[in-house]
């Protein structure tokens, strides 16, 4: 089985996934383990008056009931951007589902029973659950101002304000100005694997298992909290069963580690799906867009004000707000731009990274506003986009990486596949939108590759394979470079004691950053093979080339393994290659670093609306991405179509519903609907543009989020053309569509 890049071999690790033998965290059994259960309150914000653990402690099998009082004092706080989240609630809960205590017992039954018996006396406090509520001058503060020293916004619920722009929006004349406000719902990742954590004392250190995307980041958080050197914190990160950003940063690992140390036994905590809803979500948003157009359809300016409702603790949410709003003007030539974005704290589930990282919210607003302008100007929506679209090399964001793809090819392809401009059956409409997302702004990935004596290969890479297929891509690169069949390549991931450092698995970076590190490590081995061949042949290394698994000698070429075996000699052994890929930051850049690459997608939709029920039937959904080079075309298709389906979730059906106490009323799979096989468009078509113009191996680019970015605007555009109704609030549920149709529907 050859794993040449550009081929679509079966997924590496796929066999375990179809036989049930793949072990996710909750499938790993440690001897003598205690089962943990969280204790939470039935409201969002409350003052904890007292906690009585005596009844819980009397449950047979209970070994530990932990409250904030049992933790190191002051209670450790953590977070990737602000260290604001306590290990357990201190004095006050901030959101529905925040744990005030945790129980560990010999059995899950005992832990569940004991958790119910922890008696918490509490007083519900006024709280804020909406943007308007949080911004009210009389609103209670979500975070204690004392926790935000030196912060001039500390007396408000605004965590941060971000401003980027260029040109002079105020001074720019426009023939037409379109201004509307759009809303995006609060949605959750709903990975089918609920978050799971284990910790066990490990000699003089600790071992932790987590379905985490960033094992090295978690290692540092735990080392800081436990006062241990990094080398004494071993993070095992088995492949997550879906993550989508929700498993980037530490959640309950610090709690479980502290429980394991206190009990001096392994402890495991497997969240219920309901608890995962309370642990991670996407920020909702309200976005006002004022777009200036000239009469020929060119943009004069974009003026965007985006308010994102984040949760009670920041997690990575403020970075999401800053980075997600940053490319808000889209991939267009815009002479003047002003983008302000605020991360607004509320007494709700902490929002965090979620596929698209803050970009889908603004995209929904801006692309919809562009449709409104096209309509007012009488210009075709496709033509207007093509007119303004940045071309390769154009510095469309003046201080950042210029347009790094031939994006017009993507748009043309999507238009062709949807049949743009061809006659539509009665009652149908089409929509088209483009999306752009900033790739990573900093990065550091190391890889080690070992070429064993028989020519087989082990790759060590700290990327998490959460379904995106990184294991397969990295194996394909090593297979291609070192000439080993794909099934002779093993990829080891997810163990900080074994695998070299990787900054993180996010921002669709792994093919580019870790891919380059693996390629670099393979090149390191190739140079050793070259030296080996020179020694064996008695010629100068300059006469030899090693590439794509073969050694080119003067007049002949041989497989690498034919040089390796005699070169290693009778004792055997191996060749070890080390690789490194850095993307340095830039402190003067608004994002702390220029963008390594852009993800670009064009989505086009044909839809029909049932006027009696408001139900939207998607006739055809086209998604086309610029991927530079598809190292595995099938996996590109899976990622793009999967992202498209996920985008249909927040577009058509998904949203949290709160009650007056800030309780999520639709916790769990019955009341929170995600797309099923019955919700697919009648036709779902994906395609890609490959010009080998990306910074990754063989010209590849990151590509796992693009197909989600602009689904909403494309669907709403199709609904508008089909019915004349304009809706500026997601999701486009049948009820909302029906009401809009009843009300005449011009928004």
């Amino acid at each position, binding site marked *: 089985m050859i794993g040449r890049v550009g081929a679509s071999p079966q*997924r590496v690790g796929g*066999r375990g996934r*179809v036989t*049930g033998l793949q*072990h996710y965290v909750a499938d790993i059994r440690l001897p003598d383990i205690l089962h943990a259960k969280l204790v939470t309150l039935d409201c969002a914000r409350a003052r904890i008056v007292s906690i009585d653990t005596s009844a819980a402690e009397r449950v047979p099998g209970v070994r530990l009931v932990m409250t904030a009082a049992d933790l190191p004092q002051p209670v450790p706080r953590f977070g990737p951007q602000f260290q604001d989240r306590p290990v357990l609630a201190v004095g006050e809960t901030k959101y529905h589902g925040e744990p005030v205590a945790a129980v560990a017992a010999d059995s899950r039954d005992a832990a569940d029973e004991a958790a119910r018996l922890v008696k918490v006396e509490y007083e519900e406090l006024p709280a804020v659950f909406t943007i308007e509520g949080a911004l009210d001058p009389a609103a209670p503060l979500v975070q204690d101002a004392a926790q935000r020293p030196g912060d001039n916004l500390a007396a408000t619920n605004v965590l941060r304000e971000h401003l980027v722009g260029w040109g002079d929006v105020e001074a720019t004349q426009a023939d037409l100005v379109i201004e509307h406000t759009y809303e995006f719902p609060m949605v959750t990742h709903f*990975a089918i694997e609920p978050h799971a954590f284990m910790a066990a004392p490990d000699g003089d250190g600790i071992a932790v298992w987590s379905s985490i995307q960033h094992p090295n980041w978690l290692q540092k958080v735990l080392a800081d909290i436990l006062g241990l050197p990094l080398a004494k914190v071993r993070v095992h990160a088995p492949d997550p069963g879906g993550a989508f950003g929700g498993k980037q940063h530490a959640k309950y690992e610090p709690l479980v580690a502290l429980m394991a140390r206190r009990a001096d036994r392994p402890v495991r905590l497997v969240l*219920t799906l309901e608890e995962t809803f309370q642990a991670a979500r996407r920020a909702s948003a309200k976005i006002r867009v004022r777009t200036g157009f000239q009469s020929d359809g060119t943009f004069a300016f974009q003026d965007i004000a985006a308010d994102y409702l984040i949760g009670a603790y920041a997690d990575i949410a403020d970075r999401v707000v800053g980075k997600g709003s940053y490319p808000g003007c889209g991939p267009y030539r815009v002479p003047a731009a002003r983008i302000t974005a605020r991360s607004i704290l509320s007494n709700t589930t902490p929002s965090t990274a979620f596929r698209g990282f803050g970009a889908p919210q603004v995209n929904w607003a801006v692309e919809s506003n562009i449709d409104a302008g096209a309509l007012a100007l009488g210009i075709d929506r496709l033509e207007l986009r093509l007119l303004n679209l940045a071309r390769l090399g154009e510095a469309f964001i003046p201080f950042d990486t210029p347009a790094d793809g031939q994006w017009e090819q993507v748009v043309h392809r999507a238009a062709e596949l949807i049949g743009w401009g061809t006659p539509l059956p009665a009652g149908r409409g089409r929509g088209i939108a483009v999306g752009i997302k900033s790739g990573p702004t900093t990065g550091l990935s190391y890889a080690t590759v070992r070429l064993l004596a028989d020519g087989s290969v082990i790759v060590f890479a700290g990327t998490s394979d959460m379904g995106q297929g990184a294991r397969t891509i990295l194996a394909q690169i090593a297979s291609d470079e070192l000439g080993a069949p794909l099934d002779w390549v093993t990829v080891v991931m997810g163990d900080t004691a074994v695998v070299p450092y990787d900054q993180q698995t996010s921002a669709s970076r792994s093919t580019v950053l870790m891919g380059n590190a693996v390629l670099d490590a393979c090149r390191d081995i190739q140079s050793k093979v070259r030296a080996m061949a020179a020694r064996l042949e008695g010629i100068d290394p300059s006469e030899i080339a090693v590439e794509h698994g073969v050694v080119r000698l003067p007049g002949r070429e041989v497989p690498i393994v034919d040089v390796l075996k005699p070169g290693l000699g009778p004792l055997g052994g191996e060749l070890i290659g080390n690789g490194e890929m850095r993307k340095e930051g830039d402190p003067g850049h608004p994002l702390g670093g220029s963008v390594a690459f852009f993800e670009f997608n064009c989505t086009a939709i044909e839809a029909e609306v049932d006027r009696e029920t408001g139900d939207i039937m998607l006739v055809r959904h086209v998604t086309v991405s610029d991927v530079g080079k598809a190292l595995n075309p099938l996996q590109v298709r899976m990622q793009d179509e*999967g992202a498209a389906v996920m985008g249909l979730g927040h577009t058509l059906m998904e949203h949290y519903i709160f009650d007056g106490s800030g309780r999520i009323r639709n916790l769990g799979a019955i009341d929170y609907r995600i797309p*099923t096989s019955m919700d*697919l468009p009648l036709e779902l078509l994906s395609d890609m543009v490959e010009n080998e113009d990306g910074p990754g191996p063989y010209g590849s680019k990151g590509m796992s989020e693009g197909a989600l970015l602009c689904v909403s605007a494309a669907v709403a555009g199709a609904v508008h053309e089909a019915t004349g109704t304009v809706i500026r609030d997601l999701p486009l549920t049948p009820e909302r569509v029906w009401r809009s149709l009843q009300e005449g529907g011009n928004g």
Partner: protein
Amino acid sequence: MTTIPIEVTVNGRSRSLQVAPQHTLLDVLRDDLALTGAKECCLVGECGACTVIVDGSTVDSCLMLGVEADGAVVTTIEGLATGGRLTPIQEAFLDEGGVQCGFCIPGQVISAHALLQASAHPSIAEIEEGMAGNLCRCGCYQQITEAILATAEAGRR
């Protein structure tokens, strides 16, 4: 703690077990038999990650008590491949790209296997309806449908 004896055949092997009356079949499989292929997600019968076959019918094992399986014949994902050889539907999931993170896949494969047992040549509409009880957040529905169609087609030849 009270337990109740049951006899159950799991993947062709008869087992005598003492199970807690409140434990689901999923608990029994995962905790008592260490068969962790069936997954825990929603625990309310909506996601399908815990799907197994009981006496010829697919069930969400989170909705069935272990004691209800007394006398039953149960097939889990671990029981499909035999002698180290994947079944055609398992191969097709890999060939067609039906597997990403994989967490829902044991349930998907079991449902697809049962669907093909019930109807050798299902239509696309029958597949989409038959598989609607198995959520996949990676969004592989189209590829899973293709895997089922490809398996049915190969069976025709």
